[in-house]
């Protein structure tokens, strides 16, 4: 535990000391939320739209978008540790791989928590609140952290596999593709284009969004929440396993 705590502290301090990492991950999602909710409010006139406010509908997006920035941050931090030789020096210590992974991702979870709390506050201040109430806010934060962990682990995997920050930046657009090809802008049943609806249905990001959205708009929807946690948790487990494997390979090389 002390190994994890030491690395976790370093990871949290390092992440939060970089305004270039923290500020855009808060500002960009909020800016897009503000523009989208005003620009697309007309969509609420569509029959079957689940809310009469596009802001309430779109409030789920910043949580996932913020997590995408976390993936980038996690990957960039780990890549910088590889490039600077810090990871090589760690490999000479008796530090366990799991400790290393968890420690490295703690900073991203701290950033994820700050993002989620900010987005909840914005939702409460400018929207109609969180339909699931105070307990729903707690579940929303948990789901948001799971999503941050999932994307952060993907970022870590890419960094460990490639060993350079440029590759992490290069993969960033693919994360955005996952967000764009989801039920981000409209509910799946209102997506007109068949191929897009199919892609959105297979895309785990849709279920992450819908899990958060259910808490914001509907209240308690067990199915949406179960799918949201299952998709975020599933991606997190797979990505962590892949990152651990990449870390093992990298440590063997050193």
């Amino acid at each position, binding site marked *: 535990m002390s190994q994890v705590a030491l690395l976790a502290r370093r990871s949290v301090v390092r992440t939060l000391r970089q305004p*270039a990492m923290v500020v*855009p991950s808060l500002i960009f999602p909020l800016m*897009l939320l*503000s*523009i989208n*909710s*005003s*620009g*697309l*409010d*007309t*969509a609420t*006139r*569509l029959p079957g739209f689940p809310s009469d406010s596009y802001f309430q509908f779109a409030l789920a997006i910043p949580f996932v978008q913020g997590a995408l920035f976390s993936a980038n941050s996690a990957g960039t931090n780990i890549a910088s540790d590889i490039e600077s030789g810090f990871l090589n020096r760690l490999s000479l210590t008796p530090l366990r791989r799991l400790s290393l992974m968890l420690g490295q991702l703690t900073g991203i979870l701290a950033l994820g928590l700050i993002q989620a709390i900010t987005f909840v506050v914005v939702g409460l201040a400018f929207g109609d609140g969180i339909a699931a109430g105070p307990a729903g806010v707690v579940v929303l934060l948990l789901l948001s952290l799971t999503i941050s962990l999932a994307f952060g682990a993907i970022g870590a995997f890419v960094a460990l596999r490639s060993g350079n920050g*440029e*590759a992490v*930046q*290069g993969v*960033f*657009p*693919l994360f*955005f*593709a996952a967000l*764009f*090809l989801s*039920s*981000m*802008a*409209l509910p799946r049943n*209102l*997506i*007109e*284009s068949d*191929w*897009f609806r199919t892609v*959105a249905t297979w895309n785990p990001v849709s279920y992450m969004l819908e899990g958060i959205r259910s808490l914001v708009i509907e209240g308690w929807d067990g199915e949406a929440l179960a799918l949201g946690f299952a998709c975020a948790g599933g991606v997190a487990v797979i990505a962590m396993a892949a990152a651990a494997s990449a870390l093992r390979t990298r440590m063997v090389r050193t």
Partner: protein
Amino acid sequence: MSRGSFVSVARAVAWRNVHNWFTNPALILPSILFPMFFFTAFAGGLSRVASVPGFDYGAGYTTFVYGFVLLQASTFGGIFTAFSVARDFESGFARRLMLGAPSRGGIVAGYWLSALVRAATTVTVITTVALAVGLEVHGDGLDVVGLYMLAFLMNTFAMLFGTGVAMRLRTMQAGPAIQMPAFLLLFLAPVWVPYALLTGWVKAAASVNPVTLVLEAGRGFLAGEPEKVLPAFAVVSLLVAVSVLWARGGVRSAERAA
């Protein structure tokens, strides 16, 4: 300063940047993929919005979205080129270039040419995909020329504006200062629905945003019903003229620092 040195400097700078762009996946992929994601996400995911009462655009939602993505791709072709300028200053290459090049205007012209090539490539890819998935161009040849002229003027404006910033700050940390104004200009326009259907503060912003005129003129060309053509060209020409002065100030600032 001879005309020959201007041209040779411009050609050399343009060639280097175009070569870097085409051979570095980290540079070319985001430039092409981001507008593609926007196009796919909005044309595919939001097409039902076209059935909202009051949405009157005859050429269909795919074409409506293409009008925006075309401008976005062109503008960001200019913005990404300005990033290259900032990167060249940060690496020290631009300082050496300014010392060695007989024509500093040629340097900016070279970056401008590379911005045009970048935008032309991205626009070609996006247009090909758009045509494959249902883009309907109702305008005639003249309308199409007008549409792409607007797009390339926006590219020129964005590149000159970004270069002015990059040459003043001379660091990659200038990225947000280069990107954010262009981003705001583009997205505070009628992106997803016509102006009449906008609500709230975005409608107020769109009413004074010059890009609203450019976007509406572009969509008019696509629909074969040109509208606001003269105001749109006047506005974008004014933006280019102001950004030429801004970029010239940037060159002088960089000269003082070189």
